[in-house]
């Protein structure tokens, strides 16, 4: 049997009633979970609400937790499940208005860094908008696969476990997703 990853060990400590270990897990994975969900639903408030639910479910499951998979696989499986449900429920209605709201969530440097090159900042914002739209236009599973592949740097096998499909299915999802993105974004180079 493979050695337990450190996160799984922490989770086992949480199971034994060690609240501090839950804090360590939260510190370690908070950003990646929130960022993944933010890129999935493209709304900061919804992403944080979903991320809270992810960690709440982790905490609730502490008593029955068994380290059968890598901790991050389990964590992202919960996150992906919630994100896909939220998108399907239509709780999060992607609209122009919300995209405009989200742009306010981005680091201020992009538009108000005080540099004289306002044109450059506007161009940059337009590029980001194009990227956000291209990602949002991907089918949900492809989107999740790309985000895990690109930003979480997960291997095909781990993405397959998160998405509960075969490794070859993941490769196919990624190939199709990047094909779409190349058609839409290659000109940004």
């Amino acid at each position, binding site marked *: 049997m493979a050695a337990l990853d450190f996160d799984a060990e922490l989770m086992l400590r949480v199971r034994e009633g060690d609240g501090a270990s839950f804090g360590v897990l939260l510190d370690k994975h*908070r*950003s990646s979970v929130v960022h993944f969900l933010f890129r999935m639903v493209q709304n900061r408030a919804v992403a944080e609400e979903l991320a*809270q639910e992810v960690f709440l479910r982790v905490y609730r499951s502490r008593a029955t937790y068994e380290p059968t998979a890598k901790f991050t696989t389990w964590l992202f499986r919960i996150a992906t499940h919630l994100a896909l449900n939220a998108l399907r429920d239509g709780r999060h209605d992607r609209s122009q208005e919300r995209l405009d709201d989200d742009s306010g969530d981005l*680091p201020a440097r992009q538009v108000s860094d005080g540099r004289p090159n306002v044109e450059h900042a506007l161009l940059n914002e337009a590029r980001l908008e194009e990227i*956000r739209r291209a990602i949002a236009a991907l089918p949900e599973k492809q989107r999740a696969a790309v985000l895990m592949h*690109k930003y979480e740097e997960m291997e095909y096998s781990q993405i397959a476990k998160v998405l509960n499909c075969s490794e070859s299915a993941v490769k196919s999802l*990624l*190939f199709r997703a990047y094909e779409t993105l190349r058609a839409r974004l290659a000109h*940004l*180079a």
Partner: protein
Amino acid sequence: MVTPMNCPLETRETAELLLDYCRRRLSPERAAMLENHMQTCTACRGFAERQRAVWEALDGWEAAPVSADFDRRLYRRIEGETSWLERLSGRLRPLLAYRGVPVAAAACLVIAAGLLMERSATPVPTAAVAQKVNVEVQPEQVEKALDAMDLISEFNDKVRPEKPQAKL
């Protein structure tokens, strides 16, 4: 000398090589093989260039920072979920340590339930009965009525002369 390779774009399965190359995940040997192949394969070269452009574009997309009160909100929710039950069981625990207390509590519950059931079993007076109760004659009223009858009788006696004796 670098070994020549089949074009990775011939199948989707091998196209992952190009994705991994742009992700810089290939071993130096495989990367060298692919670069060698791309010198002659314009399709693969174009694929790699466009994929790298996408990769760099995605690099520029920063996610919004996490709210400062994220942990506070989460811990409040966790506390809210666990506290009421744990607090209740925590408060009852010392009481449960005494053997007689649970029995007494159960007995109280049974008595309370019995009282409630008895109360609900008492018939509620109907409107007709209530009306009947309201029209019942009180003793004072009877006395007053009798006094009034006596007065009328006296009045009659004074106003009217005695009836003539019937002739025999």
